[in-house]
Protein backbone atom coordinates (compact mmCIF):
# COMPACT_ATOMS: atom_id res chain seq x y z
CA UNK A 1 0.00 0.00 0.00
CA UNK A 2 1.26 3.45 -0.91
CA UNK A 3 2.20 5.68 1.92
CA UNK A 4 -0.25 8.35 2.99
CA UNK A 5 1.58 11.56 2.09
CA UNK A 6 -0.47 13.55 4.54
CA UNK A 7 0.66 11.52 7.55
CA UNK A 8 3.35 13.66 9.19
CA UNK A 9 6.45 12.77 11.13
CA UNK A 10 6.86 14.23 14.57
CA UNK A 11 9.69 16.59 15.36
CA UNK A 12 10.77 18.14 18.62
CA UNK A 13 11.80 21.77 19.00
CA UNK A 14 15.37 21.73 20.33
CA UNK A 15 16.08 25.43 20.06
CA UNK A 16 14.25 28.66 19.40
CA UNK A 17 15.99 31.86 18.46
CA UNK A 18 14.23 35.21 18.24
CA UNK A 19 15.63 36.74 15.07
CA UNK A 20 13.73 40.00 15.04
CA UNK A 21 11.03 41.68 17.05
CA UNK A 22 8.34 44.16 16.23
CA UNK A 23 4.75 43.46 15.30
CA UNK A 24 5.81 40.68 12.94
CA UNK A 25 8.54 38.94 14.89
CA UNK A 26 10.61 36.19 13.30
CA UNK A 27 11.81 33.12 15.16
CA UNK A 28 14.08 30.35 13.98
CA UNK A 29 13.09 26.92 15.20
CA UNK A 30 15.64 24.13 15.33
CA UNK A 31 13.87 20.80 14.95
CA UNK A 32 14.83 17.18 15.37
CA UNK A 33 12.71 14.30 14.18
CA UNK A 34 11.52 12.24 17.14
CA UNK A 35 11.85 8.89 15.38
CA UNK A 36 15.55 7.94 15.35
CA UNK A 37 15.31 6.04 12.08
CA UNK A 38 13.52 8.84 10.30
CA UNK A 39 15.96 11.32 11.74
CA UNK A 40 18.84 9.40 10.18
CA UNK A 41 17.12 9.15 6.83
CA UNK A 42 15.99 12.77 6.70
CA UNK A 43 17.92 14.80 4.18
CA UNK A 44 17.18 17.77 2.03
CA UNK A 45 18.74 20.20 -0.42
CA UNK A 46 19.05 23.95 -0.14
CA UNK A 47 15.92 25.64 -1.44
CA UNK A 48 13.51 22.91 -0.45
CA UNK A 49 10.54 23.43 1.84
CA UNK A 50 8.87 21.55 4.67
CA UNK A 51 5.36 21.52 6.01
CA UNK A 52 5.58 22.30 9.68
CA UNK A 53 2.51 22.32 11.81
CA UNK A 54 0.97 21.98 15.21
CA UNK A 55 -1.42 19.11 15.61
CA UNK A 56 -4.83 20.63 16.15
CA UNK A 57 -3.93 23.98 14.63
CA UNK A 58 -2.75 23.22 11.12
CA UNK A 59 0.36 23.28 9.02
CA UNK A 60 2.16 25.76 6.83
CA UNK A 61 4.94 25.53 4.30
CA UNK A 62 8.30 27.00 5.26
CA UNK A 63 11.61 27.20 3.47
CA UNK A 64 14.30 25.19 5.18
CA UNK A 65 16.71 27.83 6.40
CA UNK A 66 19.53 25.65 7.72
CA UNK A 67 22.65 24.31 6.02
CA UNK A 68 21.66 21.06 4.37
CA UNK A 69 25.10 19.57 5.08
CA UNK A 70 24.15 19.28 8.76
CA UNK A 71 22.06 16.19 9.26
CA UNK A 72 21.21 16.11 12.96
CA UNK A 73 18.66 18.85 12.81
CA UNK A 74 16.99 21.28 10.47
CA UNK A 75 15.74 24.80 10.91
CA UNK A 76 12.84 26.90 9.72
CA UNK A 77 12.50 30.63 10.21
CA UNK A 78 8.96 31.75 10.80
CA UNK A 79 7.40 35.17 10.69
CA UNK A 80 4.36 35.54 12.91
CA UNK A 81 1.45 36.27 10.64
CA UNK A 82 -1.49 33.88 10.53
CA UNK A 83 -3.08 31.19 12.63
CA UNK A 84 -0.34 28.56 12.37
CA UNK A 85 2.62 30.90 12.65
CA UNK A 86 1.10 32.61 15.68
CA UNK A 87 0.68 29.24 17.36
CA UNK A 88 4.25 28.32 16.42
CA UNK A 89 5.52 31.49 18.03
CA UNK A 90 3.80 30.42 21.25
CA UNK A 91 5.53 27.03 21.14
CA UNK A 92 8.38 26.23 23.50
CA UNK A 93 11.52 24.13 23.42
CA UNK A 94 10.54 20.48 23.81
CA UNK A 95 7.18 20.87 22.09
CA UNK A 96 6.42 18.36 19.36
CA UNK A 97 5.43 19.53 15.89
CA UNK A 98 4.20 17.75 12.79
CA UNK A 99 6.57 17.76 9.83
CA UNK A 100 6.08 16.62 6.24
CA UNK A 101 8.57 16.85 3.45
CA UNK A 102 10.97 18.01 2.26
CA UNK A 103 9.05 19.17 -0.79
CA UNK A 104 9.88 20.76 -4.11
CA UNK A 105 13.01 21.36 -6.10
CA UNK A 106 16.19 23.00 -4.91
CA UNK A 107 18.94 25.34 -6.01
CA UNK A 108 21.08 23.69 -8.65
CA UNK A 109 24.32 24.34 -6.75
CA UNK A 110 26.16 21.80 -8.90
CA UNK A 111 25.89 24.08 -11.92
CA UNK A 112 27.17 27.07 -9.96
CA UNK A 113 30.55 25.53 -9.27
CA UNK A 114 33.39 27.79 -10.23
CA UNK A 115 31.18 30.84 -10.33
CA UNK A 116 30.83 33.96 -8.23
CA UNK A 117 27.65 34.11 -6.18
CA UNK A 118 25.51 37.13 -5.40
CA UNK A 119 22.74 36.77 -2.83
CA UNK A 120 20.04 39.44 -2.67
CA UNK A 121 17.62 38.96 0.20
CA UNK A 122 14.87 41.03 1.75
CA UNK A 123 12.98 40.50 5.02
CA UNK A 124 11.95 36.92 5.73
CA UNK A 125 12.99 36.11 2.16
CA UNK A 126 16.48 35.66 3.56
CA UNK A 127 15.41 32.29 5.05
CA UNK A 128 15.91 30.12 1.95
CA UNK A 129 19.06 32.10 1.09
CA UNK A 130 20.44 31.39 4.56
CA UNK A 131 20.24 27.70 3.74
CA UNK A 132 22.18 27.98 0.51
CA UNK A 133 24.66 30.48 1.99
CA UNK A 134 25.28 27.97 4.77
CA UNK A 135 25.85 25.31 2.16
CA UNK A 136 28.30 27.19 -0.03
CA UNK A 137 30.24 28.46 2.98
CA UNK A 138 30.47 24.97 4.40
CA UNK A 139 34.13 23.91 4.73
CA UNK A 140 33.60 21.04 2.32
CA UNK A 141 32.08 23.27 -0.37
CA UNK A 142 33.61 26.73 -0.13
CA UNK A 143 36.44 25.99 -2.55
CA UNK A 144 33.92 25.08 -5.28
CA UNK A 145 32.70 28.64 -5.62
CA UNK A 146 34.22 31.99 -6.46
CA UNK A 147 33.60 35.24 -4.63
CA UNK A 148 30.48 35.50 -2.49
CA UNK A 149 28.48 38.68 -1.91
CA UNK A 150 25.50 38.80 0.42
CA UNK A 151 23.09 41.71 0.17
CA UNK A 152 20.41 41.75 2.76
CA UNK A 153 17.92 44.34 3.86
CA UNK A 154 14.88 44.75 6.03
CA UNK A 155 12.45 47.53 6.87
CA UNK A 156 14.45 48.80 9.85
CA UNK A 157 17.24 47.79 12.21
CA UNK A 158 14.93 45.75 14.43
CA UNK A 159 13.67 43.70 11.52
CA UNK A 160 17.06 42.45 10.32
CA UNK A 161 17.21 38.68 10.78
CA UNK A 162 20.16 36.36 11.27
CA UNK A 163 22.23 39.40 12.27
CA UNK A 164 24.73 37.50 14.44
CA UNK A 165 25.46 35.06 11.66
CA UNK A 166 25.73 37.75 9.05
CA UNK A 167 28.11 39.69 11.28
CA UNK A 168 30.13 36.52 11.80
CA UNK A 169 30.48 35.75 8.11
CA UNK A 170 31.21 39.37 7.31
CA UNK A 171 34.38 38.91 9.37
CA UNK A 172 35.53 36.25 6.91
CA UNK A 173 37.70 37.53 4.12
CA UNK A 174 36.01 35.35 1.50
CA UNK A 175 32.55 36.86 1.92
CA UNK A 176 31.26 40.41 1.49
CA UNK A 177 28.13 41.30 3.41
CA UNK A 178 26.17 44.45 2.54
CA UNK A 179 23.30 45.20 4.88
CA UNK A 180 20.62 47.80 4.37
CA UNK A 181 17.49 49.10 6.01
CA UNK A 182 14.58 50.78 4.21
CA UNK A 183 14.52 53.58 6.74
CA UNK A 184 16.25 54.23 9.99
CA UNK A 185 15.16 56.08 13.09
CA UNK A 186 18.73 56.51 14.24
CA UNK A 187 20.72 59.56 13.23
CA UNK A 188 23.77 57.60 12.27
CA UNK A 189 22.74 54.29 10.84
CA UNK A 190 25.48 51.71 10.53
CA UNK A 191 23.79 50.22 7.46
CA UNK A 192 23.01 51.55 4.04
CA UNK A 193 19.64 53.31 4.22
CA UNK A 194 17.43 52.55 1.26
CA UNK A 195 15.63 49.65 -0.39
CA UNK A 196 17.52 46.48 -1.21
CA UNK A 197 17.56 47.21 -4.97
CA UNK A 198 19.03 50.66 -4.16
CA UNK A 199 21.82 48.95 -2.31
CA UNK A 200 22.30 46.64 -5.27
CA UNK A 201 22.37 49.59 -7.69
CA UNK A 202 25.10 51.14 -5.58
CA UNK A 203 27.23 48.00 -5.70
CA UNK A 204 26.83 47.40 -9.45
CA UNK A 205 27.80 43.73 -9.43
CA UNK A 206 29.67 42.32 -12.41
CA UNK A 207 27.54 39.85 -14.35
CA UNK A 208 30.49 37.96 -15.70
CA UNK A 209 30.67 34.40 -14.44
CA UNK A 210 28.21 35.30 -11.68
CA UNK A 211 24.99 33.75 -10.44
CA UNK A 212 22.46 35.89 -8.60
CA UNK A 213 20.02 34.39 -6.13
CA UNK A 214 17.24 36.59 -4.82
CA UNK A 215 14.30 36.18 -2.51
CA UNK A 216 12.05 38.64 -0.76
CA UNK A 217 8.71 40.39 -1.17
CA UNK A 218 7.24 40.02 -4.69
CA UNK A 219 7.92 43.68 -5.54
CA UNK A 220 11.53 43.44 -4.45
CA UNK A 221 12.08 40.31 -6.54
CA UNK A 222 10.59 42.01 -9.57
CA UNK A 223 12.71 45.15 -9.26
CA UNK A 224 15.85 43.17 -8.42
CA UNK A 225 15.52 41.00 -11.51
CA UNK A 226 15.08 44.07 -13.73
CA UNK A 227 18.06 45.74 -12.14
CA UNK A 228 20.28 42.67 -12.49
CA UNK A 229 19.37 42.45 -16.15
CA UNK A 230 20.41 46.05 -16.60
CA UNK A 231 23.81 45.05 -15.22
CA UNK A 232 24.11 42.43 -17.92
CA UNK A 233 22.84 39.38 -16.05
CA UNK A 234 20.98 37.04 -18.36
CA UNK A 235 17.72 35.51 -17.19
CA UNK A 236 19.49 32.17 -16.80
CA UNK A 237 21.89 33.67 -14.28
CA UNK A 238 19.16 34.79 -11.90
CA UNK A 239 17.36 32.44 -9.53
CA UNK A 240 14.60 33.08 -7.07
CA UNK A 241 12.21 31.16 -4.87
CA UNK A 242 8.50 31.89 -5.07
CA UNK A 243 5.83 31.57 -2.47
CA UNK A 244 2.15 30.86 -2.73
CA UNK A 245 -0.50 29.70 -0.34
CA UNK A 246 -0.02 25.95 0.05
CA UNK A 247 -1.88 23.13 1.71
CA UNK A 248 -0.94 19.69 0.44
CA UNK A 249 2.68 20.11 -0.65
CA UNK A 250 2.38 17.57 -3.46
CA UNK A 251 0.57 19.45 -6.22
CA UNK A 252 -2.90 18.11 -5.52
CA UNK A 253 -4.79 20.71 -3.55
CA UNK A 254 -4.58 23.21 -6.37
CA UNK A 255 -4.04 26.62 -4.83
CA UNK A 256 -0.31 27.23 -5.36
CA UNK A 257 -0.40 27.09 -9.14
CA UNK A 258 1.08 29.73 -11.37
CA UNK A 259 -0.31 28.69 -14.68
CA UNK A 260 0.30 24.98 -15.01
CA UNK A 261 3.18 25.02 -12.54
CA UNK A 262 2.62 24.03 -8.94
CA UNK A 263 5.04 25.96 -6.76
CA UNK A 264 5.03 23.28 -4.04
CA UNK A 265 5.84 20.48 -6.45
CA UNK A 266 7.68 22.09 -9.37
CA UNK A 267 9.22 24.96 -7.39
CA UNK A 268 9.87 26.88 -5.28
CA UNK A 269 13.15 27.60 -7.06
CA UNK A 270 12.84 29.10 -10.52
CA UNK A 271 15.21 30.91 -12.80
CA UNK A 272 14.16 34.30 -14.11
CA UNK A 273 13.95 32.60 -17.51
CA UNK A 274 11.40 30.09 -16.21
CA UNK A 275 9.37 32.85 -14.58
CA UNK A 276 9.32 34.80 -17.81
CA UNK A 277 7.71 31.83 -19.52
CA UNK A 278 5.02 31.37 -16.87
CA UNK A 279 1.49 32.32 -17.63
CA UNK A 280 -0.67 32.81 -14.61
CA UNK A 281 -1.41 35.02 -11.71
CA UNK A 282 1.35 35.70 -9.21
Amino acid sequence: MKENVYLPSLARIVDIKLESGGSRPIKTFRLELVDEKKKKEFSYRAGQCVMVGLLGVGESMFALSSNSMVHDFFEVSVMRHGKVTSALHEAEIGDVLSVRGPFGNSFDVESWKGKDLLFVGGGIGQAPLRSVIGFVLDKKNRADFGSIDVLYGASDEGALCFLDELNNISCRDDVNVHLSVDCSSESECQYFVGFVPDNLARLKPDAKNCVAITCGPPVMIKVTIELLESFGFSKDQIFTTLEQRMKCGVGKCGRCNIGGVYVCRDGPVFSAREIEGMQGDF
Partner: protein
Amino acid sequence: MKELFICTKDLEQFLNFCCRDAKLLGPVRDNQGVVRFCQASSVSELVLEDAAKSNMSAKKAVLAQTEVLFSFANGDDGPSVSDVEEKDRVVVVGLRPCDARGIWELDRVFSENVDEGLYARRRKNVALIGMSCIKPDVTCFCSSVGGSPGGQQGLDLLLSKVDDGFVVSICSDVGEKLVTEASMISDALKEALNKRDETLKNAEESIKKSVKTQGVEKHLESVFNSKYWEKVSESCIGCGVCTFVCPTCYCFDMQDESDRQGGVRLRIWDSCMYPEYSVHASGYNPRPDRLNRLRNRVFHKFVWMKNEYDFFGCTGCGRCVRLCPVNIDIAELVNGCWEAKK
Protein backbone atom coordinates in the same frame (compact mmCIF):
# COMPACT_ATOMS: atom_id res chain seq x y z
CA MET B 1 -15.11 -7.02 -23.20
CA LYS B 2 -18.12 -9.25 -22.60
CA GLU B 3 -21.65 -7.97 -23.15
CA LEU B 4 -24.57 -9.44 -21.28
CA PHE B 5 -28.28 -8.80 -21.04
CA ILE B 6 -30.73 -8.35 -18.22
CA CYS B 7 -34.52 -8.01 -18.32
CA THR B 8 -35.99 -4.82 -16.89
CA LYS B 9 -37.93 -6.76 -14.28
CA ASP B 10 -34.75 -8.34 -12.94
CA LEU B 11 -32.73 -5.13 -12.88
CA GLU B 12 -33.37 -4.20 -9.28
CA GLN B 13 -32.60 -7.68 -8.05
CA PHE B 14 -29.45 -7.75 -10.14
CA LEU B 15 -28.20 -4.40 -8.87
CA ASN B 16 -28.94 -5.30 -5.27
CA PHE B 17 -26.98 -8.48 -5.91
CA CYS B 18 -24.03 -6.44 -7.16
CA CYS B 19 -24.14 -4.32 -4.02
CA ARG B 20 -24.18 -7.23 -1.65
CA ASP B 21 -21.86 -6.61 1.30
CA ALA B 22 -21.12 -3.07 0.13
CA LYS B 23 -22.58 0.35 0.74
CA LEU B 24 -24.84 1.56 -2.05
CA LEU B 25 -24.52 5.06 -3.44
CA GLY B 26 -26.91 6.27 -6.06
CA PRO B 27 -29.16 9.06 -7.32
CA VAL B 28 -31.85 9.82 -4.74
CA ARG B 29 -34.59 12.41 -5.02
CA ASP B 30 -35.36 14.42 -1.89
CA ASN B 31 -38.55 16.18 -0.83
CA GLN B 32 -37.60 19.34 -2.65
CA GLY B 33 -37.21 17.34 -5.83
CA VAL B 34 -33.44 17.60 -5.95
CA VAL B 35 -31.54 14.56 -7.18
CA ARG B 36 -28.20 13.93 -5.50
CA PHE B 37 -25.92 10.94 -5.16
CA CYS B 38 -26.60 9.68 -1.64
CA GLN B 39 -26.25 6.54 0.33
CA ALA B 40 -29.29 4.34 -0.03
CA SER B 41 -30.27 1.08 1.58
CA SER B 42 -31.74 -0.47 -1.54
CA VAL B 43 -31.76 0.07 -5.26
CA SER B 44 -35.51 0.67 -5.08
CA GLU B 45 -34.81 4.06 -3.48
CA LEU B 46 -32.86 5.23 -6.50
CA VAL B 47 -34.19 7.31 -9.36
CA LEU B 48 -32.01 5.75 -12.04
CA GLU B 49 -33.84 7.44 -14.92
CA ASP B 50 -33.17 10.89 -13.53
CA ALA B 51 -29.50 10.47 -12.65
CA ALA B 52 -28.50 12.68 -15.56
CA LYS B 53 -30.23 15.54 -13.80
CA SER B 54 -28.53 14.96 -10.46
CA ASN B 55 -27.27 18.20 -8.98
CA MET B 56 -24.40 16.59 -7.10
CA SER B 57 -22.18 14.17 -8.97
CA ALA B 58 -20.91 10.81 -7.78
CA LYS B 59 -17.50 12.34 -7.09
CA LYS B 60 -17.94 12.01 -3.36
CA ALA B 61 -17.68 8.22 -3.66
CA VAL B 62 -13.95 8.60 -4.22
CA LEU B 63 -13.33 12.06 -2.78
CA ALA B 64 -15.63 12.79 0.14
CA GLN B 65 -16.42 16.43 0.83
CA THR B 66 -14.98 16.01 4.31
CA GLU B 67 -12.36 13.31 4.73
CA VAL B 68 -10.01 12.39 7.55
CA LEU B 69 -6.35 12.40 6.48
CA PHE B 70 -4.99 11.07 9.75
CA SER B 71 -5.77 11.28 13.42
CA PHE B 72 -3.64 12.14 16.40
CA ALA B 73 -3.76 11.75 20.13
CA ASN B 74 -2.15 13.75 22.89
CA GLY B 75 -0.82 11.15 25.31
CA ASP B 76 1.11 11.71 28.53
CA ASP B 77 4.37 11.17 26.69
CA GLY B 78 3.57 13.57 23.87
CA PRO B 79 1.48 13.39 20.74
CA SER B 80 1.21 10.44 18.39
CA VAL B 81 -0.25 10.17 14.91
CA SER B 82 -2.09 7.30 13.31
CA ASP B 83 -2.96 6.58 9.72
CA VAL B 84 -6.56 6.22 8.58
CA GLU B 85 -8.03 2.78 8.27
CA GLU B 86 -9.38 1.27 5.10
CA LYS B 87 -12.80 2.39 4.04
CA ASP B 88 -15.89 0.26 3.47
CA ARG B 89 -16.65 -1.12 0.05
CA VAL B 90 -18.94 1.11 -1.95
CA VAL B 91 -20.85 0.38 -5.13
CA VAL B 92 -22.05 3.41 -7.04
CA VAL B 93 -25.10 2.69 -9.14
CA GLY B 94 -26.58 4.78 -11.89
CA LEU B 95 -23.88 7.30 -12.60
CA ARG B 96 -23.68 8.61 -16.15
CA PRO B 97 -20.58 8.18 -18.31
CA CYS B 98 -19.67 11.85 -17.78
CA ASP B 99 -19.50 11.33 -14.02
CA ALA B 100 -17.55 8.11 -14.44
CA ARG B 101 -15.12 9.89 -16.71
CA GLY B 102 -14.72 12.48 -13.96
CA ILE B 103 -13.66 9.75 -11.57
CA TRP B 104 -11.38 8.28 -14.25
CA GLU B 105 -9.69 11.69 -14.41
CA LEU B 106 -9.39 11.94 -10.65
CA ASP B 107 -7.74 8.50 -10.63
CA ARG B 108 -4.93 9.93 -12.70
CA VAL B 109 -4.69 13.25 -10.93
CA PHE B 110 -4.24 11.63 -7.55
CA SER B 111 -1.82 8.94 -8.67
CA GLU B 112 0.43 10.66 -11.19
CA ASN B 113 3.50 12.75 -10.40
CA VAL B 114 3.18 12.20 -6.68
CA ASP B 115 0.91 9.35 -5.65
CA GLU B 116 -0.75 10.70 -2.55
CA GLY B 117 -1.60 7.18 -1.42
CA LEU B 118 -4.79 8.00 0.37
CA TYR B 119 -7.05 8.33 -2.66
CA ALA B 120 -6.05 4.93 -3.99
CA ARG B 121 -6.96 3.26 -0.71
CA ARG B 122 -10.50 4.48 -0.95
CA ARG B 123 -10.74 4.05 -4.69
CA LYS B 124 -9.90 0.37 -4.74
CA ASN B 125 -12.98 -0.29 -2.64
CA VAL B 126 -15.29 1.59 -4.96
CA ALA B 127 -17.03 -0.10 -7.88
CA LEU B 128 -18.90 1.91 -10.49
CA ILE B 129 -22.00 0.67 -12.27
CA GLY B 130 -22.95 3.23 -14.87
CA MET B 131 -26.00 3.91 -16.98
CA SER B 132 -25.75 5.03 -20.58
CA CYS B 133 -27.21 8.41 -21.22
CA ILE B 134 -30.29 8.11 -23.40
CA LYS B 135 -31.60 11.62 -23.12
CA PRO B 136 -28.85 14.20 -22.79
CA ASP B 137 -29.87 17.47 -21.16
CA VAL B 138 -29.78 20.79 -23.03
CA THR B 139 -26.67 21.70 -21.04
CA CYS B 140 -24.76 18.48 -21.85
CA PHE B 141 -21.73 18.54 -24.13
CA CYS B 142 -19.76 15.38 -23.29
CA SER B 143 -19.05 14.55 -26.92
CA SER B 144 -17.05 17.79 -27.30
CA VAL B 145 -14.61 16.97 -24.52
CA GLY B 146 -13.76 13.34 -25.20
CA GLY B 147 -16.75 11.55 -23.73
CA SER B 148 -19.90 10.03 -25.13
CA PRO B 149 -23.33 8.96 -23.86
CA GLY B 150 -22.10 5.37 -23.78
CA GLY B 151 -18.54 6.05 -22.63
CA GLN B 152 -16.99 3.39 -20.43
CA GLN B 153 -14.01 5.20 -18.94
CA GLY B 154 -13.78 4.67 -15.22
CA LEU B 155 -16.70 2.26 -15.13
CA ASP B 156 -16.76 -1.35 -14.07
CA LEU B 157 -20.16 -2.10 -15.58
CA LEU B 158 -22.23 -0.10 -18.01
CA LEU B 159 -25.95 -0.65 -18.38
CA SER B 160 -27.56 0.52 -21.59
CA LYS B 161 -31.32 0.55 -21.92
CA VAL B 162 -32.87 -1.31 -24.82
CA ASP B 163 -36.55 -2.16 -25.31
CA ASP B 164 -37.22 -4.72 -22.61
CA GLY B 165 -34.02 -4.72 -20.66
CA PHE B 166 -30.46 -3.55 -20.43
CA VAL B 167 -27.26 -4.51 -22.16
CA VAL B 168 -24.65 -5.01 -19.46
CA SER B 169 -21.15 -4.19 -20.72
CA ILE B 170 -18.36 -5.44 -18.56
CA CYS B 171 -15.70 -2.75 -18.54
CA SER B 172 -13.18 -4.08 -16.04
CA ASP B 173 -12.07 -7.06 -13.99
CA VAL B 174 -13.91 -5.61 -11.03
CA GLY B 175 -17.04 -5.55 -13.18
CA GLU B 176 -16.46 -9.13 -14.22
CA LYS B 177 -16.27 -10.14 -10.58
CA LEU B 178 -19.46 -8.26 -9.73
CA VAL B 179 -21.52 -10.26 -12.20
CA THR B 180 -20.12 -13.71 -11.54
CA GLU B 181 -22.77 -15.85 -9.94
CA ALA B 182 -25.50 -13.42 -10.98
CA SER B 183 -28.07 -15.88 -12.25
CA MET B 184 -30.45 -13.38 -13.84
CA ILE B 185 -28.17 -12.29 -16.67
CA SER B 186 -27.64 -13.92 -20.01
CA ASP B 187 -25.51 -13.26 -23.06
CA ALA B 188 -26.70 -10.29 -25.04
CA LEU B 189 -28.32 -11.07 -28.37
CA LYS B 190 -27.28 -9.37 -31.56
CA GLU B 191 -30.61 -7.48 -31.78
CA ALA B 192 -30.16 -6.03 -28.32
CA LEU B 193 -26.65 -4.88 -29.17
CA ASN B 194 -27.82 -3.30 -32.39
CA LYS B 195 -30.63 -1.57 -30.60
CA ARG B 196 -28.18 -0.34 -27.96
CA ASP B 197 -25.85 1.04 -30.61
CA GLU B 198 -28.71 2.78 -32.34
CA THR B 199 -29.98 4.34 -29.10
CA LEU B 200 -26.54 5.60 -28.19
CA LYS B 201 -26.05 7.03 -31.64
CA ASN B 202 -29.35 8.87 -31.36
CA ALA B 203 -28.40 10.12 -27.94
CA GLU B 204 -25.09 11.43 -29.19
CA GLU B 205 -26.78 13.13 -32.11
CA SER B 206 -29.30 14.79 -29.81
CA ILE B 207 -26.58 16.66 -27.93
CA LYS B 208 -27.11 20.26 -28.94
CA LYS B 209 -24.28 21.95 -27.16
CA SER B 210 -20.79 21.76 -28.55
CA VAL B 211 -17.42 23.22 -27.71
CA LYS B 212 -14.71 23.79 -30.25
CA THR B 213 -11.90 22.14 -28.36
CA GLN B 214 -9.48 21.24 -31.14
CA GLY B 215 -6.27 23.06 -30.20
CA VAL B 216 -8.05 25.17 -27.63
CA GLU B 217 -5.27 24.72 -25.06
CA LYS B 218 -2.85 26.53 -27.37
CA HIS B 219 -5.35 29.17 -28.31
CA LEU B 220 -6.39 29.96 -24.75
CA GLU B 221 -2.78 30.59 -23.83
CA SER B 222 -2.61 33.19 -26.54
CA VAL B 223 -5.59 35.09 -25.12
CA PHE B 224 -4.59 34.91 -21.46
CA ASN B 225 -4.29 38.68 -21.19
CA SER B 226 -7.35 39.43 -23.27
CA LYS B 227 -10.02 41.89 -22.13
CA TYR B 228 -12.36 39.02 -22.85
CA TRP B 229 -11.94 37.68 -19.32
CA GLU B 230 -13.02 40.98 -17.84
CA LYS B 231 -16.23 40.81 -19.78
CA VAL B 232 -17.10 37.20 -19.03
CA SER B 233 -16.31 37.41 -15.33
CA GLU B 234 -18.39 40.53 -14.80
CA SER B 235 -21.48 38.61 -13.78
CA CYS B 236 -19.67 36.05 -11.61
CA ILE B 237 -20.82 36.27 -8.00
CA GLY B 238 -17.91 34.24 -6.65
CA CYS B 239 -19.82 31.36 -5.07
CA GLY B 240 -18.54 27.80 -5.19
CA VAL B 241 -21.42 26.11 -6.99
CA CYS B 242 -19.57 25.43 -10.23
CA THR B 243 -16.66 23.77 -8.47
CA PHE B 244 -18.66 21.78 -5.95
CA VAL B 245 -21.05 20.29 -8.48
CA CYS B 246 -18.22 19.55 -10.93
CA PRO B 247 -17.29 15.88 -11.29
CA THR B 248 -13.63 16.71 -11.89
CA CYS B 249 -12.90 19.64 -9.56
CA TYR B 250 -10.68 18.15 -6.89
CA CYS B 251 -8.99 21.05 -5.11
CA PHE B 252 -9.18 20.85 -1.35
CA ASP B 253 -8.42 22.63 1.86
CA MET B 254 -6.75 21.03 4.89
CA GLN B 255 -7.92 21.84 8.40
CA ASP B 256 -7.43 20.47 11.88
CA GLU B 257 -10.18 19.66 14.32
CA SER B 258 -9.23 18.72 17.81
CA ASP B 259 -9.81 18.87 21.52
CA ARG B 260 -7.40 18.29 24.38
CA GLN B 261 -7.27 14.53 23.91
CA GLY B 262 -6.61 14.47 20.21
CA GLY B 263 -7.98 15.30 16.83
CA VAL B 264 -7.85 14.84 13.11
CA ARG B 265 -6.47 16.61 10.10
CA LEU B 266 -9.14 16.77 7.43
CA ARG B 267 -9.39 17.57 3.80
CA ILE B 268 -12.45 19.43 2.69
CA TRP B 269 -13.48 20.40 -0.82
CA ASP B 270 -12.37 23.92 -1.56
CA SER B 271 -13.19 26.22 -4.41
CA CYS B 272 -10.81 28.30 -6.49
CA MET B 273 -13.66 30.77 -6.87
CA TYR B 274 -13.22 31.98 -3.30
CA PRO B 275 -10.74 34.81 -2.69
CA GLU B 276 -9.68 33.04 0.48
CA TYR B 277 -8.44 30.05 -1.53
CA SER B 278 -5.25 31.68 -2.72
CA VAL B 279 -4.66 34.58 -0.32
CA HIS B 280 -1.24 34.60 1.35
CA ALA B 281 -0.81 34.99 5.10
CA SER B 282 0.51 38.47 4.38
CA GLY B 283 -2.83 39.41 2.85
CA TYR B 284 -1.40 39.47 -0.66
CA ASN B 285 -3.63 37.65 -3.11
CA PRO B 286 -2.21 36.50 -6.45
CA ARG B 287 -5.75 36.09 -7.76
CA PRO B 288 -7.48 39.12 -6.29
CA ASP B 289 -10.40 39.54 -8.67
CA ARG B 290 -13.22 37.47 -10.06
CA LEU B 291 -11.48 37.77 -13.40
CA ASN B 292 -8.35 36.02 -12.14
CA ARG B 293 -10.29 33.30 -10.44
CA LEU B 294 -12.65 32.54 -13.30
CA ARG B 295 -9.79 32.55 -15.80
CA ASN B 296 -7.82 30.27 -13.53
CA ARG B 297 -10.70 27.82 -13.41
CA VAL B 298 -11.13 27.75 -17.19
CA PHE B 299 -7.40 27.50 -17.81
CA HIS B 300 -6.98 24.73 -15.28
CA LYS B 301 -9.64 22.68 -16.99
CA PHE B 302 -8.88 23.45 -20.61
CA VAL B 303 -5.16 24.20 -20.71
CA TRP B 304 -3.14 23.01 -17.78
CA MET B 305 -4.87 19.68 -17.22
CA LYS B 306 -4.81 19.06 -20.96
CA ASN B 307 -1.08 19.74 -21.02
CA GLU B 308 -0.35 17.60 -17.99
CA TYR B 309 -2.68 14.64 -18.51
CA ASP B 310 -3.83 14.99 -22.10
CA PHE B 311 -7.49 15.31 -21.15
CA PHE B 312 -9.70 18.26 -20.40
CA GLY B 313 -10.69 18.76 -16.80
CA CYS B 314 -14.27 18.95 -17.96
CA THR B 315 -16.49 16.03 -18.87
CA GLY B 316 -19.32 18.07 -20.33
CA CYS B 317 -21.87 17.07 -17.69
CA GLY B 318 -23.35 20.55 -17.85
CA ARG B 319 -23.96 20.91 -14.12
CA CYS B 320 -22.07 24.16 -13.73
CA VAL B 321 -23.95 25.59 -16.71
CA ARG B 322 -27.29 24.55 -15.29
CA LEU B 323 -26.70 25.38 -11.64
CA CYS B 324 -24.67 28.58 -11.82
CA PRO B 325 -26.94 31.20 -10.25
CA VAL B 326 -26.01 33.66 -13.00
CA ASN B 327 -25.62 31.15 -15.83
CA ILE B 328 -21.93 31.51 -16.57
CA ASP B 329 -21.67 28.90 -19.28
CA ILE B 330 -18.26 27.28 -19.55
CA ALA B 331 -19.01 25.90 -23.02
CA GLU B 332 -20.01 29.30 -24.30
CA LEU B 333 -17.03 30.82 -22.55
CA VAL B 334 -14.54 28.49 -24.21
CA ASN B 335 -16.21 28.88 -27.59
CA GLY B 336 -16.09 32.64 -27.16
CA CYS B 337 -12.35 32.63 -26.62
CA TRP B 338 -11.81 31.90 -30.30
CA GLU B 339 -13.11 35.37 -31.12
CA ALA B 340 -11.40 37.06 -28.18
CA LYS B 341 -8.96 39.82 -29.01
CA LYS B 342 -5.45 39.22 -27.81
